[in-house]
């Protein structure tokens, strides 16, 4: 029994699920559910649809290169049964899955790394620009403790000549 990948979203198609479409040039398109099939019929490109694996890989959202991916491969020749080998494989699967999950979470953390400082900066800027929305300017004048410390700002002043021109 083979677990195929969905053509649209690249998820695993388990036996008994989904639909497959055979084009006249004998290319087979497998879909995991009607959602993927409908999107295919609408001629959508999986690379441009945000929830697909193809999009996430293309835009660096998911981990793409890793040694743990090397284990999952399509083999056309059936392996001869070996009890020890099968046992070891079953043991290894658990380990590999764990390693992959760890690495993936690490990848996401790395990707999100710069976000916090960016957010801080943005918030500080917003506060500076729109403090007047919190307090009326007259109230600020009365109670200087609410104001931000004064920052010297460069203002380009119109020269006398410009004024004359106007």
């Amino acid at each position: 029994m083979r677990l195929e990948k969905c053509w649209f979203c690249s998820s695993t198609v388990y036996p008994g699920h989904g639909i497959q479409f055979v084009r006249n040039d004998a290319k087979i398109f497998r879909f995991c559910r009607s959602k993927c099939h409908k999107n295919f019929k609408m001629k959508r490109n999986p690379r441009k649809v945000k929830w697909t694996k193809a999009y996430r890989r293309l835009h660096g959202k998911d981990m793409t290169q890793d040694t743990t991916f090397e284990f999952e491969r399509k083999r056309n020749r059936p392996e001869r049964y070996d009890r020890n080998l099968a046992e070891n494989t079953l043991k290894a699967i658990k380990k590999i899955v764990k390693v992959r999950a760890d690495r993936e979470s690490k990848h996401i953390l790395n990707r999100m790394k710069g976000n916090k400082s960016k957010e801080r900066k943005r918030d500080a800027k917003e506060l500076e620009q729109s403090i007047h929305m919190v307090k009326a300017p007259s109230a600020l004048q009365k109670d200087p403790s609410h104001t931000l410390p004064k920052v010297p700002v460069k203002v380009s002043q119109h020269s006398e000549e410009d004024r004359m021109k106007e």
Partner: protein
Amino acid sequence: MAASKWYRAGRSLLGGLNNTSLGLLRMSSRTHLLSQQTRTFIQMGTNLKVVDNSGAKRVKCIQALKGKKGARLGDIIVASVQEVNPPKEVKKGVVTSTVKKGAVVHAVVVRAAMPRGRCDGTQIKFDDNACVLVKYAGNEYEPIGKRVHGPVPHELRKKHAKILSLAGYVA
């Protein structure tokens, strides 16, 4: 009077324009739905492509041998030949079609656009409706042609192993 006539004509013209533009809009919003047209059984009047080298090009289904609603993938139908390939010149003379236009033949549906459930619960569907002409020989149907073009489903294995062996691709 004349002015009012003009006015009316102008309005009707505009109205016409409006209608067409609306229609166009509607068309464009529905195009993707049109492509998702529901496919039905192969029934009386369905045109099928013939994908073997029997010489026939297109047949029209006149009866499904099984099922009340019509034939599906892998079923046998009775069909009338609508179009045949024109005679072709080769080294040793002229090759003409082995079947004549208007002949009533049996055929196996090897590709159907309507999805068909498989034994493992998945479904399979094809691009078009296509068939292979067969002849009843003794106790089973045997293909007339010696070649089958395009993909065929592996469901034919039980009853039409010959077609399967002739086909290039098995889906």
